[in-house]
């Protein structure tokens, strides 16, 4: 009897503990999500109600040329950033990890500083450095292509340049994560492997890489989600131009909702983006886990 009553009280306590979270979750996530889904079936403006128009928004979306450009750009941007930034972070972390005490701290600060900067400062810095006329990096372009390049106004250079800016901006955080992962690998494993006759290469391939894999998978997944949500840098550096060639989904949402007052249509696009991120990231994380499952 007493046990049963205790159990019930136990349940009540548990419920009361998660209730605040549930309430906030419902308020700021579930309800807006429901509203987005509902809105996407209407022709509502940004503010106010609209009429139910069924799947019209989606039909329109799938014949919208900019939608396809955006999807393609989102994918291209992911290719340009996710794996490169992870690899770069890994190389930097491995190098930093070999520095001793004070130098390590100094190197970390240097690599982490860009991450602290607000996005508008970052884009200002790079807009200045890559300026067509007096950008300090233009000689590099001149050296390779023979002439200066207005990178943010050139359809071929615009996304790769934004990718470089993004990697420079966010890489410090990945370095930190990977460094933490490296420090978690016990040194005596390296000593045992050294006694077993491992070369530097083998140490990396057979100890560091497999034991770092959980962290690497985490970084890859976080990066994938983050980079699919690309908006600020494009908005501030190219505004989707030139000729809409650097449009991405979130920029499209912004334009439809806030510039063209198409609330319903913007909701449909956001929903597609949401599903895309959810599916791709879950898929990727599962794939990475399976990849790891082989040798865990």
């Amino acid at each position, binding site marked *: 009897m007493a046990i049963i009553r205790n159990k019930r009280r136990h349940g009540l306590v548990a419920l009361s503990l998660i209730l605040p979270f549930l309430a906030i979750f419902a308020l700021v996530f579930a309800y807006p999500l429901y509203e987005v889904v509902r809105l996407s079936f209407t022709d509502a403006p940004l503010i106010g109600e609209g009429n139910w128009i069924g799947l019209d928004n989606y039909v329109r979306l799938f014949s919208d040329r900019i939608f396809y450009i955006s999807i393609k750009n989102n994918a291209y941007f992911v290719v340009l950033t996710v794996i490169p930034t992870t690899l770069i972070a890994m190389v930097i972390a491995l190098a930093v990890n070999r520095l001793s005490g004070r130098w390590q701290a100094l190197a970390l600060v240097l690599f982490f500083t860009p991450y602290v900067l607000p996005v508008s400062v970052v884009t200002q810095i790079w807009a200045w450095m890559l300026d067509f006329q007096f950008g300090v990096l233009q000689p590099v372009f001149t050296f390779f292509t023979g002439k200066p390049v207005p990178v943010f106004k050139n359809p071929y250079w615009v996304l790769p340049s934004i990718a470089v800016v993004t990697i420079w901006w966010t890489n410090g955080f990945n370095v930190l994560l990977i460094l933490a992962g490296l420090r978690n690998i*016990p040194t*005596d*494993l390296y*000593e*045992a*492997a*050294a*006694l*077993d*006759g*491992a*070369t530097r290469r*083998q140490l990396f391939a*057979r*100890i560091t890489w*497999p*034991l770092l894999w959980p962290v690497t998978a985490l970084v890859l997944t976080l990066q994938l989600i983050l980079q699919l949500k690309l908006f600020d840098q494009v908005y501030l550096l190219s505004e989707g131009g030139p000729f809409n060639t650097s449009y991405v989904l979130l920029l499209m949402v912004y334009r439809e909702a806030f510039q063209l007052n198409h609330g319903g249509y913007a909701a449909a696009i956001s929903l597609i983006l949401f599903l895309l991120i959810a599916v791709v990231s879950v898929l990727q994380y599962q794939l990475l886990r399976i990849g790891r499952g082989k*040798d*865990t």
Partner: protein
Amino acid sequence: MSGVKLTNVRKSFGPLDVIKDVSLEVPKGEFGVFVGPSGCGKSTLLRMIAGLEDTTGGKIEIGGRDVTAVEPAKRGVAMVFQSYALYPHLSVAENMAFSLRLSRAPKHEREEKVREAARILQLTDHLDKKPSALSGGQRQRVAIGRAIVREPEVFLFDEPLSNLDAELRVQMRLELTRLHRQIGATMIYVTHDQVEAMTLADDIYVLKGGHVMQSGRPLSLYDDPDNRFVAGFIGSPAMNFVTGKVTGTGNGIARVACADGTLDVALQGALPGPGADIILGVRPEHLAPVEEGGLPVTVEVAEELGGSSFIHARSATGADIVFERRGQRDRLDGQSLRIAAPAENVLAFLPDGRRLR
């Protein structure tokens, strides 16, 4: 098979001298144990033999070959770590075959060697498991298996049993002795546990503060220690020490006044003059109650072990004295009595700790 020889070996970490001029030799095929209190540099010395720490000075030879500057993998040594250092992402079989894989040994050779090691260590049923699915004792055996597979000339163990519970420790101790008989390789074993050292070793090397205090067969260290440190470190319960002054000498016997009583000590060399300060050491099993003479003590606690008991007593000057009784069941708690030991079983030390023989 080869022995290990250290000549004037030194090691400093920056300003800190951890190993100060160690010379010793572990003959080939022998089981040598480095023992000493925590922080005395045992692990450092072992890691220097393995090549995991570089040598500040001196020479390390393995099998007559100077390996002081040779990299770890080329020294012909295998090491078993206190933490086992198993590769968590590899199975037991892969852990044991790791070194063979690195050297690209053919598959059938790898499998054969792993199978043989697994048979010796009774791991055959666990070859496909990950280390995380093993018990402490099994992990320890995998670590040893990884060493066996490499067929090293010298095995190095750094406190391999300290993470195991007492019962398993005793069992693994026996298995290690058996393993040593079976493969006959030179083994060097580090521990701070003198019981482990006594039971495993052919030769014990007692370290303190970066010096070898004494080395030799376990029983010779027990019976004939060179200094007060070794005398107190080897043996459990530890040797009793009392300080006193020589009152008279004759016939190779010195009579010493100590703790409100007297003890006789037999000495072969020159006898110290009357009035000399001296420290006497007596093992618990040599002390027994006497009618008169000896030291007056008051019994405080008795540790009953069944076959024997250790009586903890306090001398008139407040020193702890432990003595052993066998086969007597009457209790002595709280009693005052006198205890003494035969003169030839009493050891004498100078105030600086050196043995007076």
